[in-house]
């Protein structure tokens, strides 16, 4: 089966400092549809940089990035934005919900992004479906300030899912939550693999990593497969 994502020899060097620092050093990674992958590593090991490259926020200095069979290593920003909209969903440690919008409006933000246009009724139906999927449809009209951290993160997950992405990238999504709520959020994230969406989770939490299909360890810019290796 062809991989959804194929990274080979991805290198990223941080310039602009006294000594250029290699953050990613020839990273290779294949991710298939419906697969869940955890990326773990110490702070500053380059996990977020790898996620930036995967999510087309940033470009690798070397190496190739194949997405669904197409080489997107040198994609112009306009096309990258289109791919981010159509293929990726993002969940961050901080939820990044806009306080002045309701939960439904925050989710709809991913639909009102200039990449195609959905009439209001269809938009609302999709938003409600995404909120239902993460179990908070009843909070659709609430503003983030009236929600708990777990609820806010679920809204963020609904926002990531509303465009039915093929890859969900989560950067420490439980970092700001307590253990119990964090577990619920991981449940919600893992549920997306059931519909052939790949999940790539960057985390410090070994328990959450262990729940993923594969665990990759990033150390000194090099990615190692640690699936099944206990701490």
């Amino acid at each position, binding site marked *: 089966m062809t991989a959804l994502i194929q990274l080979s020899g991805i290198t990223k060097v941080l310039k602009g400092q006294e000594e250029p620092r290699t953050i990613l050093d020839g990273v290779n990674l294949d991710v298939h549809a419906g697969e869940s992958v955890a990326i773990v590593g110490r702070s500053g090991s380059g996990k*977020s940089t790898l*996620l*930036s490259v995967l*999510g087309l*926020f*940033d470009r690798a200095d070397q190496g190739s990035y194949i997405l669904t069979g197409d080489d997107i290593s040198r994609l112009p*920003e*306009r096309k990258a*934005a*289109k*791919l*981010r*909209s*159509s293929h*990726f969903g*993002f969940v*961050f*440690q*901080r939820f*990044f919900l*806009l*306080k*002045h*919008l309701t939960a439904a*409006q925050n989710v709809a*933000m*991913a639909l*009102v*992004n*200039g*990449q*195609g*246009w959905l009439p209001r009724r269809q938009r609302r139906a999709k938003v409600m479906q995404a909120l239902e999927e993460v179990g908070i449809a009843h909070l659709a009209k609430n503003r983030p300030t009236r929600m708990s951290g777990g609820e806010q993160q679920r809204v963020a997950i609904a*926002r990531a899912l509303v*465009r039915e992405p093929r890859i969900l990238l989560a*950067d420490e999504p439980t970092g700001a939550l307590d253990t119990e709520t964090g577990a619920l959020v991981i449940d919600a994230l893992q549920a997306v693999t059931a519909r052939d969406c790949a999940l790539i989770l960057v985390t410090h939490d070994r328990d959450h990593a262990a729940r993923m299909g594969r665990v990759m360890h990033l150390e000194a810019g090099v990615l190692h497969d640690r699936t099944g290796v206990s701490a």
Partner: protein
Amino acid sequence: MRMSGRGRSALIIGLQGIRARKTRTLLSMVSLFLGVLAVVVVQAGASIAERALLSDLELYEGVDGTVVMDMGGTSPRLGSIVTSTVAGRSDAVAMTSMQAVIGEPGVRPVNEGGAPFDGSWGDPGPPMECDETGCRELPAAEVQPKGQAIEVRLTALTGNVRQFRPYRPQAGEWLDFAAMPSLGPRLVLNKEAAKGFQQYRVPAEMRVPGASANMTPHFVGVVDDGDQQPRAYVRLDELSHWVPENKLVDPNMGEVRVLMVAGTPVEQVLSTKLKAVGVEPMVRTVNSKKDMADQLSLMRLVFLAMAGLVLLIGVAGILNVGLATVGERVEEFALRRAVGTPRALLAGIVLAETLITGLLTAALAIGVSALALKGVVAFAGTSQPFLQGMQFPWEAGVAGVIAGLVAGVLGGFIPAIRAAGIPIATVMRA
């Protein structure tokens, strides 16, 4: 016309942004308000000034497009040629003026020479006597004493001249050209003449040079004709009961003028007839609006430049608020980019917000100006005739909207570029 998906997205997000930051939007509007108001007021002022000047000019020049034919020469047949060609026509009116004295016979009028009653013409000089051969100073022995008489310029009309010169009715009625001509000539006075007859009580006896007898005039109305000289208007056919056709033109101070609509055959027929008797007519078309626009355009430009400066201060305000807002929304814009919003749309969102702010300000400035004008019309409309029925000039509304849009674009341009350049990694590093 339907907006594109991006346009609609920019509008929706822009409106959400404005709703979320009402105070900031209000502050931007406050800084912009004076600038837009200045543009609206200058434009409205220029339109109103043009109308005011034009309305006075129309009284003695005629409405734009009127063809005016003036006759030179002293042909004795001039009067009969003009009246026979023009009489009874609705597309042309002939007017001929002569001296007339109303009041006690055998005395000099109080305003000798047809002067205004406020003495603004100064010393009228020695009394003169005029006939077909010219004017001479009267010997002292023949000079009559001043008495109860008023001298006016009497303008005889072949038809309703108000279609060309919209004299403003002040009292009574205008001459009725549809009715049978009256034996006693009916006169409509202008404001200055009416003032004279209010000041001086004179017998109702009118003397016109060349008339077969003195007449008893009937005053039927008063109009504002914009003339400072006392003047009376009369139907030519009523006057001709008393004054023969060849005497209808004063050989010394006679004015014969025909006002007509453009394209009427009267112009060619009359010119041909007049040339045949050696009179060279001078024809021109009234185009006051254009002449005045040239004069007003420079003044308007100067004021608009001043208004533009005030607007620039407003733009600086909107720019300042815009930059501060973008600085506060870095994460929001980075997040929007992360979910696939193109840079151009981010710029569009910021521009949409400033444009909406500019348009709201324009609407407010236009509303305030329109209300102020309404107040001025209600307060001073009776004393200033040109203000009567005055509506807010649409040009001022258009200028206000354009000023609002321009301010929105100028004030939003740099914040829009900043917003478009925010790196997505901002959300990763947060």
